[in-house]
């Protein structure tokens, strides 16, 4: 569908920006039945992968599974465009194992653009936003630079790095949010005018190398796993051919050259004021901060099947192009490398996410939502998750429904939302598994179980997906109860259920099938498969076996986390009503009152998480809250056992 031009149009919602966040926001909105416009600077770059050609990774893949469980698009698209797929952290436990796929960038963008433009109920509009309009305390639309006026009661801003963006390459600078793309110049001041606090942030991308000039023979090849793990519940019929990546290292020479050119880096010369991501530092940052490291890893990742572009992962830089070439050529395999494009840094405007409510809606003007990099995050997956969350909540707001309160115990997505809106961040935020206290509960394998209810309630899933999940969960229960019921003799006087047997650290379903449990059952004479010996004839799908092992092996730990969750839930239900005056509670220390004012917690569980708040104060405030005749509606005195 071609981008439409109209002087005036009415929609339920408008999404500004067609990146990973905007796509998921728009999809959520249309699936909830809202007529939506997607405004993009360039309609044909919808779904562009601006930086590295990969989706997933530790913690990030968890987000992709969650997005998929909520009906999102990213997972399926990554499955379809995968040219290499790997499972990470396989030497660790199931909760932190992650999936990472490298995609053909070009196919990804083209397929995504196509999918998005054909979403029923969605109109793609090409143009730059000139101004946001509000009617009193709520937005009512926006106008484009060409004069087009769009009306809507909900607007999701997901403009990525494009607000007042400047690209730096050495001492040179140019206006634009991505190589070859313009910058959104007006949106920023329009947002600031509502009262949002802005901050300059910085991100960077490495040079792209020409595959024809790389000597791969000398390098360590890295193939993906033979079997691709899907992100999506949808099956992908045609897999793309798989490619190989290569590993090489920087060396002392590389570091010397970088060090000698520090002053040419806009990072250190002070030209870039924005704060960069701590976890994905530029190579000059790495050399400076980890001066004692002799070498850093460089992964050479092809950007697609039909391109010579190679992405040198770990080499993000904003040094001048000639310096980039110089230091890259010191690296093994890159001695004669040519650049397809130099690396550069981008500085852009972000908003303070603590100015947003739980649903990413502006605290200053109703109906205005924000998602993605503009909220001070980094990463495609983080952006997409936010887009979905903002779209979901914008959709609910349009229906007059309440914002969904983020539940840290349910998903990484909500952990991210919680961290951003309640804790805030001063530098680009990236998700890690360690961001969650409930890591063992939040896994790839159970994303659909965790989020099914939320997805269902809000109509985010198609019928097929609902049926798929329902069947999956039923068959899991059936298998589980079969394993529970099936008794096996494991010693002269020991009979246990098969699920108890599986609970042993040294036993896996795989080892049972292969008969490689070291003769645990046979007393040494180990002929044939143990599965036969156990007399368990049923076939069980890999998915189910994996999940079963997880639950069985984490069991004690999961119980402990669940107990913790129960307590937090109890305390969270004690929310402070609007205008709650902590000073009015008898016997609360002054220190607690100060801390309360500083952190403005919303519930007792948040209060108790603030360091320095005394238990006595928590008790006093909790008792006071409970004793209130009307504690804000959300608190029912009967249901709380404080």
């Amino acid at each position, binding site marked *: 569908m071609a981008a439409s031009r109209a002087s005036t149009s009415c929609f339920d919602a408008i999404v500004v920006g067609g990146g990973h966040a905007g796509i998921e926001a728009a999809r959520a909105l249309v699936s909830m039945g809202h007529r939506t416009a997607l405004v993009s600077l360039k309609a044909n770059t919808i779904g562009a992968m601006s930086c590295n050609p990969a989706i997933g990774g*530790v*913690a990030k893949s968890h987000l992709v599974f969650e997005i998929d469980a909520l009906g999102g698009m990213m997972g399926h698209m990554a499955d379809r465009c995968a040219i290499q797929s790997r499972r*990470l*952290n396989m030497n*660790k*436990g*199931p*909760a*932190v194992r*992650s999936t990472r796929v490298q995609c053909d960038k070009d196919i990804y963008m083209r397929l995504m653009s196509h999918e998005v433009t054909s979403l029923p109920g969605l109109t793609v509009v090409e143009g730059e936003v000139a101004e946001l309009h509000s009617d009193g305390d709520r937005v009512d639309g926006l106008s484009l630079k060409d004069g087009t006026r769009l009306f809507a009661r909900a607007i999701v801003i997901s403009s990525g790095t494009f607000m007042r963006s400047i690209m730096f390459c050495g001492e040179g600078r140019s206006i634009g949010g991505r190589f070859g793309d313009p910058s959104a110049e007006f949106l920023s001041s329009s947002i600031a005018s509502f009262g949002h606090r802005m901050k300059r942030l910085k991100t960077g991308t490495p040079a792209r190398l020409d595959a024809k000039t790389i000597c791969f023979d000398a390098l360590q090849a890295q193939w993906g796993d033979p079997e691709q793990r899907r992100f999506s519940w949808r099956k992908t019929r045609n897999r793309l051919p798989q490619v190989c990546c290569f590993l090489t290292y920087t060396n002392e020479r590389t570091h010397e050259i970088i060090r000698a050119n520090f002053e040419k880096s806009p990072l250190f010369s002070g030209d870039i004021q924005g704060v960069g991501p701590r976890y994905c530092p530029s190579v000059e940052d790495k050399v400076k901060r980890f001066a004692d490291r002799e070498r850093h*890893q460089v*992964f050479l990742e092809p950007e697609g099947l039909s391109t010579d572009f190679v992405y040198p992962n770990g080499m993000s830089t904003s040094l001048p192009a000639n310096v980039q070439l110089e230091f890259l050529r010191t690296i093994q395999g890159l001695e004669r490398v040519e650049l397809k494009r130099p690396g550069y840094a981008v500085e852009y405007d972000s908003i303070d996410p603590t100015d947003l409510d739980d649903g990413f809606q502006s605290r200053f003007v109703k109906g205005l939502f924000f998602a993605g990099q503009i909220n001070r995050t980094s990463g495609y997956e983080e952006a997409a998750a936010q887009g979905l969350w903002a779209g979901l909540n914008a959709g609910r707001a349009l229906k007059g429904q309440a914002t969904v309160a983020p539940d840290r115990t349910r998903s990484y997505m909500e952990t991210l939302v919680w961290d951003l809106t309640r804790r805030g961040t001063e530098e680009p935020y990236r998700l*890690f*598994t*360690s961001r969650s*206290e409930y*890591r*063992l509960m939040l896994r790839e394998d159970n994303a659909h179980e965790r989020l099914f209810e939320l997805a269902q309630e809000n109509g985010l899933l198609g019928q097929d997906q609902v049926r798929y999940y329902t069947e999956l969960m039923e068959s899991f229960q059936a298998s589980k109860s079969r394993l529970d019921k099936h008794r096996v003799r494991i010693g002269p006087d020991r009979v246990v259920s098969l699920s108890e047997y599986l609970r*042993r*650290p*040294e036993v896996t379903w795989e080892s049972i099938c292969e008969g490689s449990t070291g003769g645990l059952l046979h007393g040494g004479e180990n002929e044939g498969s143990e599965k036969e010996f156990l007399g368990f004839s049923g076939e069980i799908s890999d998915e189910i076996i994996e999940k079963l092992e997880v639950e069985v092996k984490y*069991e*004690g*730990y*999961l*119980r*402990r986390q669940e107990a913790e969750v129960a*307590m937090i839930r109890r305390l969270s239900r004690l929310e402070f009503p609007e205008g709650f005056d902590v000073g009015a509670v008898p*016997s609360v220390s002054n220190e607690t009152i100060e801390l309360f004012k500083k952190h403005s917690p919303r519930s007792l569980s948040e209060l*108790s*998480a603030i*360091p*320095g708040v*005394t*238990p*006595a104060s*928590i*008790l*006093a405030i*909790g*008792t006071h809250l409970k*004793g209130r005749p009307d504690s804000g509606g959300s608190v029912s005195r009967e249901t709380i056992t*404080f």
Partner: protein
Amino acid sequence: MSSSAPSSQGPQGAGLSSLAGDSRAYVQRLGQPIVAIASGAGGSVGVIRLSGRDLSVFAEMFRGPLPGPGEFALRDVVGRDGSRIDRALVLYFQAPHSFSGENVIEIQGHGVESLLGALTARACELGARQALPGEFSFRAVWNEKMSLEQAERLNECYSIADLKAKSASALLGFSDRDSARAQEVMRGLLELVQKARGRVEAAIDFSEAEQEQSDDVRSALHTIDGVTQQVSRLMSSYENFNRAHVPTVVLVGAPNAGKSTLLNILAEGERALVSPVAGTTRDFIEARVRLPSGQWIRVIDTAGLREVPGSSSNPSGDSALPPSSRGGSDDHSRLELLGMQKTRELMQTSRVIVWVRSCEESDLPGVATGADWPIDTRERVGPGSWISQPRPQPRAEPKPEIEVWSHRDLATSDETHRDRAAFDFVKESAACRDYILRCIASALAGEFATKDSARGLEQESVPEITRRQFQLLKIANDELCLARACLEGARPIELCADHLRQTELELNRALGRGLGDEYIGQIFSQFCLGK
């Protein structure tokens, strides 16, 4: 070990502690007038203490007006009909200048139990309530008259029967500055644990950098070892004190006789403070139990000596490993021997021995009740009476012994058990607890009276930490052992992070941060009545 069913359902919810364990009881009733006998037994003066926001109504108890703030006066205390109950010295302390920080009336009458009872009853008639355990102290802490640690130390003094004067005054004189030192240490430890966890988290989240991962693990191991050492040191400062001052009762019996279950039954209130590590057994081998008189005793389950997770005798955290990776059978029997050796020592130093026997196993006469437990070397000296003669120390004094029979439900004949103290530990936990505590109390009664200077450790020791902190550190210590085992490959590394996080939680609790409401209620419910 015996089944875990009784420990999960057991005696929880019974008695005073469940009422008092609910901190709401304390908070919601702040300000209400409470009354209790504040003086110890046996003196010629008895003291009643009343505390509350408004005590004006209690002027009615006296003939003549209440004395002014900080003053005292001799008054007749009268009943409702105006008849005199006692003539007593009445003191009035105005808030906040009192023990509890509220208005307080103290009545110093004659130290006659019935009179004191009548005075209390009179106060209750006028609207006062019998104070919950530790309620006065709770209010004092609430009103910032003393710190939680001070209150806890005060309670230790009251609860330990034969605390020597030197120790008592040292304990009471232990200033906030002193406890600040221990806090400083713990804060340091907390930082180290956080640092270790940082390294572990990095190893999890940055999966591609392999070299760095092993650096991270090594560094975390090193840090954990350092922390474990310091935690042990802090703990031993309390353990030494505890050993020296609190009478020990040891539970002895064959495996599966029900010792652990019995310990759990006796430990009742204590259990809520010790959360079980999921996936491992954390049946504690030692519990502090309060006798009906308010005195503390230590009860030790000898079974635990053979298989304790994370105990100080097993600092490497062996038991966190799956069974298959533990030592072979040689190791196992070595551990057994070690356990028996320790049991013998304990039997010698303890003040009372409780024999736990199973009705199921003992029906046949002549069969040793401790079949595979060759500790039972006693000789029968007459019908029904036993004298213990631990083999290594034939000259050891006979000491009081109590016998209790478990598994009454499994007894083959009722005849044998008619005159035995036999219980079904699961179903009759309350009765069983009651019986044993009474037996222990009477066995110790004689002991408390004699000034036996040979018993116990003589040196004065003042613990750097309180009992609550000790318990929390003990859990922290277990968690550290488990964390270490994970790093060494016994379990996946993300579980190490989980154990370290739990360690942080316990350290924070020991520092008085993030105490859940249930903890506060528990702390005060273990206080003596009237304190």
